[in-house]
């Protein structure tokens, strides 16, 4: 017998009588009067800086004027063309000196301030982790109340990799003292837009078919 057969045989011999999957759990949705306000409050409690902006033009203005310009700034967002370097293809290790990455999130969750994004939004999977500082752009109407609402939207989306990010990288492994900046980004800033421009794949810019930004 193969290991697979031995394995499944042992499991089958030992499993109990089939029990039904419970009826779908309907969560209590009265947790928040205003999911957007709760999202912002929760983000601040997990160490995230939230800036309210009007639209993508305001995001561009922010990057142009507010961002510390020392070091590499990388973003696949078309609206940042010329301000940020597009995500370079090839070895992910090339991103090791990224100082600031700006990515477009898909869904924000009010109950835990997590933002969902997939590899399509990252260009390179390692980017939101390897960058020293991370900025996520989200629109208010992309904020849902609870995790089940987020998964209702994700539904059967096909992605290679997706992640919820809630705050900067952190650890409390030494005597339970909270330290921000473990292995991933040392800071997270959310640019929360009150108006959502329609977004599509054509808005994302990747190296190779767009102009590079010189360093």
């Amino acid at each position: 017998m193969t290991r697979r057969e031995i394995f499944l045989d042992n499991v089958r011999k030992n499993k109990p009588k089939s029990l039904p999957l419970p009826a779908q759990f309907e969560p209590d949705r009265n947790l928040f009067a205003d999911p957007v306000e709760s999202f912002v409050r929760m983000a601040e409690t997990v160490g995230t800086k939230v800036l309210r902006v009007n639209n993508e033009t305001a995001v561009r203005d922010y990057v142009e004027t507010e961002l510390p310009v020392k070091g590499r700034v990388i973003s696949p967002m078309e609206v940042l063309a010329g301000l940020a370097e597009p995500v370079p293809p090839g070895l992910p290790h090339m991103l090791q000196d990224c100082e600031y990455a700006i990515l477009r999130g898909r869904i924000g969750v009010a109950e835990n301030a997590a933002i969902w994004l997939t590899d399509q939004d990252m260009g390179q999977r390692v980017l939101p982790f390897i960058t020293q500082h991370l900025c996520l752009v989200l629109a208010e109407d992309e904020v849902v109340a609870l995790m089940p609402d987020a998964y209702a939207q994700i539904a059967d989306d096909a992605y290679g990799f997706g992640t919820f990010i809630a705050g900067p990288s952190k650890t409390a492994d030494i005597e339970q003292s909270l330290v921000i900046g473990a292995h991933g980004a040392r800071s997270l800033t959310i640019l929360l837009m009150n108006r959502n421009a329609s977004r599509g794949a054509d808005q994302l810019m990747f190296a190779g078919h767009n102009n590079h930004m010189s360093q």
Partner: protein
Amino acid sequence: MGNTAYKDHAALSAGFNRDEGRVDWHDQTLWFVRQKRDRLSQGIPDWEDLREAASAIKSHTLSNIDTYLETFEKNALANGIHIHWAPDAVSHNQTVLEILQRHNISQLVKSKSMLTEECHLNDFLEQRGLEVTDTDLGERIVQLAKEPPSHIVLPCIHKKKEEIGELFHVHLGTPAGLADPQQLTEAARQDLRKRFLTRRAALTGVNFAIAETGEFVVCTNEGNADMGAHLADVHIASMGFEKVIPGRKELGIFLRLLARSATGQPITTYSSHFARPRDGQELHLILVDNGRSRQLGRDDFRASLKCIRCGACMNTCPVYRRSGGHSYHTAVAGPIGSILAPNLDMAQFKDLPFASTLCGSCSNVCPVKINIHEQLYKWRQVLVRHGHTDTKKTAAMKAMAYTLSRPALLNFAGKSLRFALRYAPLAINNPLNPWYRQRDMPAAPAETFAAWYHKNRKGANR
């Protein structure tokens, strides 16, 4: 474990208890985590319903686990993930070794995986000349100290920052005497970043595997699993088969429970969903049984397989908080570990179900409603039936049962005891009687309950 003489939970606890200040600190720190868990869970109005739903989903999944495993396999294969089946720890370790050897890789970075602790993977690989770097900060610290983790979520909770500073001074070249958590973490970040960038293989654990999509989810606060996996040419993920859940809908329930129960956070910083390898990368997933199917067949202990490894039962346990994780001499310590370990080896872990007051706090905080304290009690009965109990204790219990079932003898024994307590306490309370090590007896009562009852019974009837 290894070659050292066998020491049971009581003996190992006695060692931990020598430093009373540290025990107090350990106790209070874990209680603080328990309180954070309370605050967060109380913020969810339907928390109890959520626990109930999670528990029922796990019951359903475990009762159809073969079908779910096959569905998961089919979908994961379609995603381009290589699936391996490991009936035991040895076949798991061999599978990891074979994958690494095929790629000529001798160094790997590893994020937290209690399963690889259970399988003793690090020892296995190191004995064969490979280098393993644990990348979770707490795990890195205990690895440098050549110790196992003492807690599944907080691996070095037994260590003081000065001791960590000393380890880093020796291994990472930080200044002697440096004990600031911020600076120590920064030193580890710099050192591990070099390793992430140069190691070609990364091993991660798995928090949840989703049957309907063939993806798996890894939760961390530090981002170490992602740093390893997204830079490596080869990503190996190891999971016990009980981590499979039906779909993403169910994931939405478990992710609400996990971090709130574990550390009192609304969610971990990163909840990463791995569905397909990135271009040019190989992604392997090893499904492990290692005794889990045997536990699945035990009616009384099956529910222990619902565990999502949050550690809430440890943080609340009055015994764990005061005895430390190493006193359990098994990969998963605390109440849940004490019902998992005897399934792996009844003789080696016969002491663990007794390392509990059966107060039930563990069952009350468990996010998937495992009846932990009831299972501890049931394990005791199984262990007695299998002859795994201390002969002195068995003899004492038998003598007590004999006495309690004979009123005249009980009367005589009671009189003798009261006499001794009053006039010759040293005959009982002396260093030879282990009962008195942390205890004292009450003053002997003036009269027995039986005497009191006889005197007052007439009055009560009137």
